[in-house]
């Protein structure tokens, strides 16, 4: 049960060559797990999230496989994936504010979408209304056009629509980033509530802001420049991270639970490499304080303790 991702590699095809945005990602999610996916902007979080559900050009499948509840997802087949989208795997996209058709009333759009998926709207309506209550939206939003809603309302509306068919996996991409601090907390809590009420089984919560994950994520996965760096329970990532990048990231946060801004992340000297032509080996090498010869090869992602995975040559020996 849950999600298994094995060696997933996704590039962007561009005129100047392949942008190697996701390289050999391997990880898994238990059923019911909320995993935070964090890392600097541009490290490939959205790429990973999107590739699981909507692998559209210029994104290009290079390799790897994805299993959801034991069944392989045909992620590279745009047509075949339709069967899984929405029902088994769903998304609250990064662009949630613009995700609703501007010239359809929200209720009508939802109805047309469900009809197209051969779901009876009337039968779902009571549940839809219950979930509107859950995210504190009045029922008459269904009679409004998206433009009549505030940004936060639109986002919660998208959250309700995406999870209407109780997907096994929900991908929530930067759902808090555009909101003020108070609404961030509220939306994060609503997401947990959704999981607790089985509106989705497990979720990947993508953010460049780790602090929001402290309250809601069971586990956290850290990415750096298209590579997965570390994955462990939230406690472990915060209190005893092992990857040098995670350590720097966590120590650059003011205090647990306090919001940090993106700027502090750049407190780590140097910049991430360009993914168009990344250096071989560990992509963190240029900025890593403890890098050594071995780091010219790509470090394996190994389980050093139960449920704690690290991709670093310094840690590989400790497994």
């Amino acid at each position, binding site marked *: 049960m849950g999600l298994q991702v094995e060696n997933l590699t996704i590039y962007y095809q561009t005129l100047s060559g392949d942008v190697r945005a996701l390289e050999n990602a391997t990880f898994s999610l238990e059923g019911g797990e909320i995993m935070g996916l964090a890392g600097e902007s541009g490290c490939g979080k959205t790429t990973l999230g*999107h590739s699981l*559900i*909507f692998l*559209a050009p210029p994104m290009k499948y290079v390799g790897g496989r994805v299993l959801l509840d034991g069944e392989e997802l045909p992620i590279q087949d745009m047509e075949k*994936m*339709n*069967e*899984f*989208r*929405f*029902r088994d795997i*769903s*998304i609250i*996209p990064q*662009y949630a504010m*613009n*995700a*609703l*058709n*501007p*010239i*359809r*009333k929200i209720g009508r759009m939802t109805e*047309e*979408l469900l009809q*197209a*998926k051969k779901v009876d709207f009337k039968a779902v309506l009571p549940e839809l209304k219950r979930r509107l209550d859950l995210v504190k939206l009045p029922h008459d939003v269904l009679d409004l*056009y998206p*433009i*009549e*809603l*505030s940004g936060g*309302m639109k986002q919660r509306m*998208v959250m309700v*629509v*995406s999870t209407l068919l109780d997907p096994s996996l929900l991908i929530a991409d930067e759902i808090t980033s555009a909101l003020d601090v108070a609404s961030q907390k509220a939306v994060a809590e609503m997401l947990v509530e959704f999981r607790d009420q089985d509106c989705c089984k497990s979720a990947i919560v993508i953010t460049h802001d780790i602090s929001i994950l402290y309250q809601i994520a069971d586990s956290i996965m850290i990415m750096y420049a298209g590579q997965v760096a570390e994955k462990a329970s939230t406690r472990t990532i915060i209190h005893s991270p092992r990857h040098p990048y995670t350590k720097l990231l966590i120590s650059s946060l003011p205090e647990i639970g306090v919001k940090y801004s993106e700027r502090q992340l750049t407190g780590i000297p140097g910049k991430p490499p360009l993914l168009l032509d990344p250096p071989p080996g560990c992509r963190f090498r240029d900025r890593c304080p403890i890098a050594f010869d071995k780091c010219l090869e790509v470090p394996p992602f190994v389980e050093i303790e139960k449920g704690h995975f690290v991709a670093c040559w310094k840690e590989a020996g400790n497994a």
Partner: protein
Amino acid sequence: MKRYFGRKILIYLLTFFLAVTIDWMIPRFMPGDPVRNMLTRVSVNTNASAIQMMYDYYSHLFGLDMPLWQQYLSFWKSLFMGELGISVYLFPTPVKDVLLRAIPYDAFLLVPSILLSWYAGNKFGAFAARSKWLDNTISPLSYILTATPYMWLGILLAWFFGIVLGIFPIAGAYSFTMRPNLSWNFIGSVFHHWFLPFASLFLVGFGGWAIGMRNMIIYELEADYSHFLGALGAPKKLVRKYAFSNAVLPQITGLALQLGVIVAGALVTEVVFSYPGIGYLLLAAIQNQDYFLIQGCFLFIIIGVLLANFIIDIAYILVDPRTRRGMTGETA
């Protein structure tokens, strides 16, 4: 809602007032003298004092001997009474009658060509947006069509079908040998004469609409809401339907603009094909310095433009919720 319409109507009235004033000014500040023009054309009398008498008589008849401000006021007065004056060039036919005779030809030529090209162009554009093969054939063709100067296309059509092949007449609205009557023969002749000017307008319009629609749809298919639907596995049909209904909005505005410049656009057609609509009339009026007829033609154009815009304003409120929101000034 009420305030919105109040404001709109005020703007339309102001525009009307200004446009009509300019309409009144233009012929009067054109060089030349319409009465003298008419007299030299019709009169064989060379007696100077007789000519002067006739000149005074006609100037008085047309009200051209009054000071300008009086002419202006009486112009508005008669306008409100539905009087457009008497044509100098087709003396003594009232301008109103001259216009009423020409308008059916314009409507018959322009309304079908604009609406059909709009409909067909949008259909084809939407079609081209989803088929590589069609896109590779129709789009370049459409670009050529819209890039062709209209005059050139009109003359080319007239030359090829009218002169080389000789299958279509290239002048008039019906055969010169006929009098208007309700016979199949006459109706056939009307359609026969109508076809080439219609086709030339249709082709140019079609190309423009098709390109506009194709580009808009491709743009909308890349919009966030389209991607979201795709990510939720919505069938292509629904995604395309949404993209289409968003893409068609700017096309509606475009249609308004087209309907607005209906007469200006037709001017060239009517001249090339000697088609007796308002455009053709306007050219004759200008050549003959017929103040009242020029005014009448422009008045017709002004009313047409404003009316078309007003109708589209209303239509837009019905189809685009975003305008409705701006109208009531609500904030979310």
